[in-house]
């Protein structure tokens, strides 16, 4: 029996699955526009950011865990890489407010379940799987420290 998916991630998945293929691309585009700017304290410290090598485009992530044990994911990707920005934005929004345990419990195949494999291709979805995997690894390392 699998653990229930966090509410926001389930909502994002259901929103995509409710749409036709072409409209799923439009929704992904909306997500890409919503990716927040990197906080200024990281913009000046590229050394803190981890490159997501699975993505063809230069996307970088950084994970913070606050005193309450809540995970904060920051990501940056250039405007000419909207697909990658969309992937990052889905995770930033979907993981917002979750605890360390909740983030670590997100199934690694989540990116394959949100109905984008046909519109975007499974190969490209691997970039999002890389984003999620690296986020979870950073959370694991930082929560152990």
């Amino acid at each position, binding site marked *: 029996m699998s653990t229930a998916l966090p509410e926001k991630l389930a909502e994002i998945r259901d929103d995509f699955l409710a749409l036709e293929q072409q409209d799923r691309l439009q929704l992904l*585009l909306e997500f890409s526009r919503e990716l927040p700017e990197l906080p200024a304290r990281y913009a000046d410290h590229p050394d803190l950011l981890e490159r997501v090598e699975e993505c063809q485009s230069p996307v970088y992530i950084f994970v913070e865990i606050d005193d309450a044990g809540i995970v904060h994911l920051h990501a940056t990707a250039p405007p000419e890489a909207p697909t990658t920005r969309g992937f990052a934005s889905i995770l930033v929004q979907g993981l917002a407010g979750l605890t360390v345990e909740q983030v670590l419990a997100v199934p690694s195949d989540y990116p394959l379940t949100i109905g984008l494999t046909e519109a975007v291709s499974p190969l490209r*979805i691997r970039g999002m799987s890389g984003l999620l995997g690296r986020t979870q690894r950073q959370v694991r390392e930082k929560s152990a420290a």
Partner: protein
Amino acid sequence: MAVAPDPNPAFSAFAHPERLVSTEWLAEHLGQPGLVVVESDEDVLLYETGHIEGAVKIDWHTDLNDPVERDYLDGEGFAKLLGGRGISRDDTIVIYGDKNNWWAAYALWVFTLFGHEDVRLLDGGRAKWEAEGRPYTTEVPVREPVEYPVVERDDAAVRAFKEDVLAHFGNPLVDVRSPEEYVGDRTTAPAYPEEERCARATSRAPGTCRGARPSPRTAPSSRRPSSTPSTATAPA
């Protein structure tokens, strides 16, 4: 050839100047009957953010590759794709895209394998079009489907196989990989994912074929041109 070639003198020294058009030429000829503009990008969403007016989107992965076999789509699939997008066999096609026309050139290659006679690249691709401040639209053109003939792919005319290369030694060869790969320091393009190249990379020592020259068009960590399905691996 539905539309006369771009007479740009900058292309005249090339073996096939008719295969290139400039941004100026395209801007002047947009909307001309018999001319179809196709955008083909690495990023599957880029077309949706804005594209050249009237351009049709063809994605290298979701449209041009077979979803199951590691190969291009077949003749029937190609006919269905182009006909469905309102492209006729005798249309002039101009293709452009992101990342220095990486996947635009891939699409041109696939169209050529299927014998589409007049298919050209936009010199400079999206990057040059944007740098010149030329406009984009998000309006997706509505094109009436047409009949495109089912043509069997013929690789023999434009594709060199191993035996061809062996017989060719001593004559010019162009290596379009990165300079790092050319000199043998790396077996994969810098700044790109290593995925799925391990088997190929370990099969021999890095380096180049005898007599190969690096392509002057390939800047370090810019692009990894791809001409066959065996290297077509590019997640977003």
